[in-house]
């Protein structure tokens, strides 16, 4: 029946039906317990209403069997809900390896998305249907929150680090994007649209922006202009460690610890090189904080990732 206003959100991602199934089971069990309690109250209140002033109700002090019953049953029910919820939670925050990676930067009261092919858009995100999309989010000022009700996904966007969440759209169309963490005056104005398109239309849309450089190309240009190439020359005598094929590998640090070279590590090494110094190299790299913005760092990281995919990359010792 159409009331003229929705009572339930769209199910537009692979995760939505799974979350809704858990939601309905929880509603069912909760309605059962709520009815059990309210009916019991109404029935007891009516049946045992006070008829005479000097009534002496029987002295019932308690019953161990009942106490155990209404401890074990709620415990069983809640543990099942915990396990089911934990499984879905783990899936939501573990993107599949073949996901299309899109970088999102949140800034006080707007969203900026950057596609690997170089196209960037504001308060809008065009994505292909039926393909897992991994979002890499960071914020330039306060904590924001990327929330798409139709996909049942939400993650805070914390300044100073990367957050990841993924979804796979199953319905074409436009879906609302909200900022769900209070971020200041126009928090309620920080809206956006996720436009899900057929893969063909998505490719055309991507190509639409004439002369747009891919993210990696823009990163390569920055890699030159900022002078990174001066130290990271991939030669043995280079003052900086080799970066080709670095992404995703284990890096041995000076203090003996090892660290995965993921986005956070690369971002940290650009912003604060002193934090983790690669074994066998001097801590001479200056910080690039303030010299390159969040978008620039994302481009450089995309460039470093592209080095990884180049089979013919310069030989590495």
């Amino acid at each position, binding site marked *: 029946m159409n009331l003229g206003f929705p009572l339930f959100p769209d199910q537009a991602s692979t995760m939505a039906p799974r979350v809704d199934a858990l939601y309905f089971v929880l509603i069912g069990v909760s309605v059962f317990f709520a009815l059990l309690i309210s009916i019991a109250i109404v029935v007891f209140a009516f049946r045992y209403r006070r008829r005479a002033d000097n009534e002496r109700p029987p002295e019932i002090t308690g019953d161990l069997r009942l106490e155990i019953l209404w401890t074990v049953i709620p415990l069983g029910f809640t543990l099942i809900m915990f396990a089911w919820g934990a499984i879905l939670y783990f899936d939501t925050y573990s993107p599949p390896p073949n996901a299309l990676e899109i970088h999102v930067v949140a800034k006080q009261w707007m969203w900026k998305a950057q596609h690997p092919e170089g196209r960037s858009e504001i308060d809008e995100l065009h994505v292909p249907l039926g393909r897992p999309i991994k979002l890499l989010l960071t914020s330039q000022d306060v904590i924001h929150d990327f929330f798409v009700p139709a996909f049942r996904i939400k993650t805070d966007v914390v300044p100073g680090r990367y957050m990841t969440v993924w979804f796979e759209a199953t319905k074409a169309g436009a879906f609302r994007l909200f900022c769900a963490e209070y971020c200041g005056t126009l928090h309620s104005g920080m809206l956006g649209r996720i436009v899900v398109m057929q893969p063909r239309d998505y490719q055309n849309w991507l190509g639409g922006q004439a002369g747009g450089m891919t993210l990696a190309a823009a990163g390569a240009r920055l890699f030159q202009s900022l002078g990174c190439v001066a130290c990271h020359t991939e030669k043995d005598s280079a003052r900086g460690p080799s970066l080709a094929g670095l992404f995703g590998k284990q890096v041995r640090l000076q*203090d003996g610890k090892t660290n995965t070279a993921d986005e956070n590590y690369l971002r940290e090494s650009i912003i*604060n090189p*002193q*934090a983790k110094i690669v074994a066998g190299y001097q801590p001479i790299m200056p910080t690039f904080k303030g010299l390159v913005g969040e978008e620039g760092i994302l481009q450089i990281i995309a460039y470093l990732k592209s080095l990884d995919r180049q089979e013919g990359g310069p030989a590495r010792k």
Partner: protein
Amino acid sequence: MSKSHPRLLHHFDDPEQQLEASQSGMWLFLVTEIMFFGGMFIGYTVYREAYFEVFAHASNHLSVWLGGINTAVLICSSLSMAMAVHSAHQGQRRKIVFYLLLTMVLGTAFLGIKFTEYYHKYGENLIPGLDFAFKEGNAGQAAIFYSFYFGMTGLHALHMIIGLGLLSFLAVQAARGRFSPLYSTPVEMTGLYWHFVDIVWIFLFPLLYLVGRH
């Protein structure tokens, strides 16, 4: 213990109940202080774990000598406080006053050393927010170390000042012979408070001063 005890308050039945109530009340108050300092300690521990190298460099700017002497001064003041409480139980008026004054002198000495340290840090531009300059590494993280250093030792110094206030009040009372074996609760309570402040410093000293000294 006679029922009509001079200091028995109307809502207590007998002096034991009153004394036990004060003691439990004081211990509970010290538990809130444990959690109060605990909040700062967990913040410091998290960042010390995250930025150990920078924290080590920043901590090496603190002088271990002054810190060590301060710890010794506080331990002496704890001893003299314990003696003050002991002589209050015995009701020896002159001894109570002597030990209270000794504790106050040691407490003031501690604060004196503390503020000279603060002055040194001011000289070396190591006070965050006041043209903070730190060379050996990430200045932002060093600013966090010094924020916690000034925050925790400042809070501790504030507790010392409150303690000195209490002690001076007690010294006056003791001089007037208010305390006797029957009634020495205020001295005992201030003693518990003072020992607690000493314990906080016992944890502050290694965590702040002895970071990565090798």
